[in-house]
């Protein structure tokens, strides 16, 4: 399976993602944001970081990068595109997934492990993960998911909520919402569920020395389902 990770100026999780993808069997290529063509890929990843210094709005400048037109075309033709953290912010700015990510409710940079409940398994990203709850890492200033009431209705009607912040048992309640996101939303799909944006970093949880291994389930499942 071939993957491509896009590096923007200010990306800082691109190499972690490269390590994670390779560990689970992807042949990964790094792609510079000024490139025009994507290499032939089964999966394109927009990594975490602070592209363009988070100027204007997080992800707004990166969403207009040269490579993004190819990424948008790839997604619109059914290609698998995943945005993690800043990558999620870039995805919402392209309009590939609905909503926006606002400044965290309590204005803090949050860097900690959280639990997320897998809300929908009728998709390649989460299909065969046996557990319903994963412990993943978040590190962001702007992860407060927001959308209009009309958008929220549409997202829920189409089962586009991928994961919600929860407690270790999977209870989705306000005390387990780290950043103020509507309905504890931590990740969403586009309508067709080939595009996934999420704030948590599975690539940071792929080794016991990295405080957890739940990210391994995610990547193992992903490559198995893409084969």
């Amino acid at each position: 399976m071939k993957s491509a990770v896009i590096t923007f100026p200010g990306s800082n999780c691109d190499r972690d993602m490269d390590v994670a993808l390779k560990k689970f069997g992807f042949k990964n290529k790094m792609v510079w944001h000024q490139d025009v063509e994507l290499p032939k890929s089964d999966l394109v990843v927009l990594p975490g970081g602070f592209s363009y210094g988070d100027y204007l709005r997080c992800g707004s400048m990166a969403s207009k990068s040269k490579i993004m037109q190819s990424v948008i075309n790839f997604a619109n033709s059914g290609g698998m595109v995943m945005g993690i953290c800043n990558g999620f912010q870039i995805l919402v700015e392209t309009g590939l997934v609905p909503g926006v990510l606002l400044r965290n409710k309590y204005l803090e940079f949050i860097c900690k492990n959280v639990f997320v409940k897998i809300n929908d398994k009728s998709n390649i990203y989460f299909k065969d993960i046996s557990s319903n709850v994963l412990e993943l890492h978040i590190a962001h200033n702007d992860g407060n998911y927001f959308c209009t009431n009309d958008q929220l209705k549409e997202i829920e009607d189409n089962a586009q909520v991928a994961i919600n912040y929860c407690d270790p048992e999977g209870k989705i309640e306000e005390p387990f919402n780290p950043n103020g996101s509507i309905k504890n939303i931590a990740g969403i799909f586009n309508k067709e569920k080939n595009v996934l944006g999420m704030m948590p970093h599975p690539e940071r949880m792929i080794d016991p020395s990295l405080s957890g291994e739940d990210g391994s389930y995610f990547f193992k499942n992903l490559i198995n389902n893409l084969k």
Partner: protein
Amino acid sequence: MKISVIITLKKDVLDPQGKVIHQALDGMGFDDVNEVRQGKYFEIDTSETNPKKAKDKVEEMCKKLLANLVIENYKIIDAQ
């Protein structure tokens, strides 16, 4: 020609920064403030000389990049 743009958050969107500024003002003794909303201000210097065309272009810039219309409104306030 210089054109100015003000971007503000829509009414229903939470503005935690505005809230904190409000609290700080309150703590400083400005206790008659009802609400503070933080926004953005841009000055765009363009070589376009036709005011109508310049304004139309800036409007396109607002829609495509400067504002995110899910959460923000834009107002073009000046063409001179």
